[in-house]
């Protein structure tokens, strides 16, 4: 059982990190998208350094949220389509495990690259070191929750017509608590906001495997 779970985690991670080979993306496209949003933002609001430094942290959070929408349609649907979930069920591997592993793989493939890309984005906005630290810690606390919501939403919309668009639409409101606490930590100066973002992440992490597994099973009928 442990051997099977490790094999699945390895596979999920490889696929989400490197993509499907034939233009299936991987983690590179969402990160480039994240940087692109950060780069074009000053064009839209003007090159006022004081303004950019003030809103930069919030923009980075928003860009991270938008970038997290891009991989949603690859998280569950291709494997459902290929019958992999059925095959795991036949081997007695609970859907809860499968979803939990998928969340872990999604976070591992997405969050470290995002945290790294946040540094050049922060430099573009001229953020101070102390602000960058709050953004990075906030993202570190919030991204596990974003990963959990992403996989959950992907499981709920798998197999639906227009599922990808619906997933993006469902994803945004479910991420609001993390965004409020995470980006809010910038306004109130750190600690408590990050702790609340982490708490929201933990709640979502605890619920998502069960809700996602129920969605997978319901989708079989």
């Amino acid at each position, binding site marked *: 059982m442990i*051997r*099977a779970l490790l*094999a*699945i985690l390895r*596979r999920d991670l490889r*696929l989400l990190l490197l*993509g*499907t*080979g*034939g233009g*299936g993306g991987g983690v590179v496209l969402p990160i480039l998208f994240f940087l692109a949003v950060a780069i074009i933002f000053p064009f839209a609001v003007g090159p006022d350094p004081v303004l950019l430094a003030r809103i930069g942290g919030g923009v980075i959070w928003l860009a991270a949220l938008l970038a997290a929408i891009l991989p949603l349609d690859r998280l569950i649907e*291709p494997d459902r*389509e*290929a*019958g*992999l979930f*059925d*095959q795991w*069920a*036949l*081997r*007695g591997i609970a859907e809860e495990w499968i979803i939990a592993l998928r969340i872990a793989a999604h976070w591992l493939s997405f969050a470290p690259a995002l945290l790294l890309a946040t540094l050049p984005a922060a430099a573009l906005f001229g953020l101070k070191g102390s602000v960058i630290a709050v953004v990075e810690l906030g993202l570190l606390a919030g991204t596990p929750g974003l990963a959990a919501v992403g996989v959950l939403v992907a499981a709920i919309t798998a197999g639906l017509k227009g599922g990808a668009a619906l997933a993006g639409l469902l994803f945004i409101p479910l991420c609001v608590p993390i965004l409020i606490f995470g980006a809010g930590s910038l306004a109130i100066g750190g600690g408590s906001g990050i702790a609340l973002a982490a708490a929201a992440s933990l709640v979502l992490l605890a619920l998502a495997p069960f809700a996602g597994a129920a969605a997978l099973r319901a989708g*079989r*009928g």
Partner: protein
Amino acid sequence: MSATALSATDLCCRRGDRWLFHGLSLSLARGDALHIRGPNGFGKSSLIRMLAGLLPPSPSPQTGHIGRVDWAGPVALIDERHGLDAALPLGRALAFWARIDAPLPDGTLERLGLARLLDVPVRYLSTGQKKRAALARVIGQRAPNWLLDEPLNGLDTAACAQVEALITEHRAAGGVVVAISHQPITIPGASVVDLGRAPRQFSAAQWAEVAA
């Protein structure tokens, strides 16, 4: 008297307000085979998925009881989904299952004509090649019970004979095979369930009348 491999009782399947079948009971011993027949839309694939435990049985229209499916040992399934990573080369897609199940028995790839396809991504394989790859996955699973939903789809004559031979070998080793096939398939001594012939087509409204 050989050991029971499958005991399924009072299986019912309802789709919307239509009963595809109900009150269906099956019992198979080790080495047995069952051929499920019937026209399209009569619930053959639903029955296979129910036997696989992937589709919960509907409550019986007469008693309200929910049917049971009990297998001795694990179950392997082939259906219209190949169950392999479409993006990976065939060799690595099969290696993933080998890590979860067990390595393929020697000669399996050659027998199924897959040995030269190991570097080809699964999504570029033809329908018949995907079906053969799925068969390799089933063999690697080493489950005593096989559920085969249209195993001959897309296969050429030689590959069809190969599948029939694999089924015979599997049964000789004590395995059970439940198959759906529109194409002629020779499974010696298989019992037959014909979902088209069984008087099981009742609408919910008719059942309400019967119950009243």
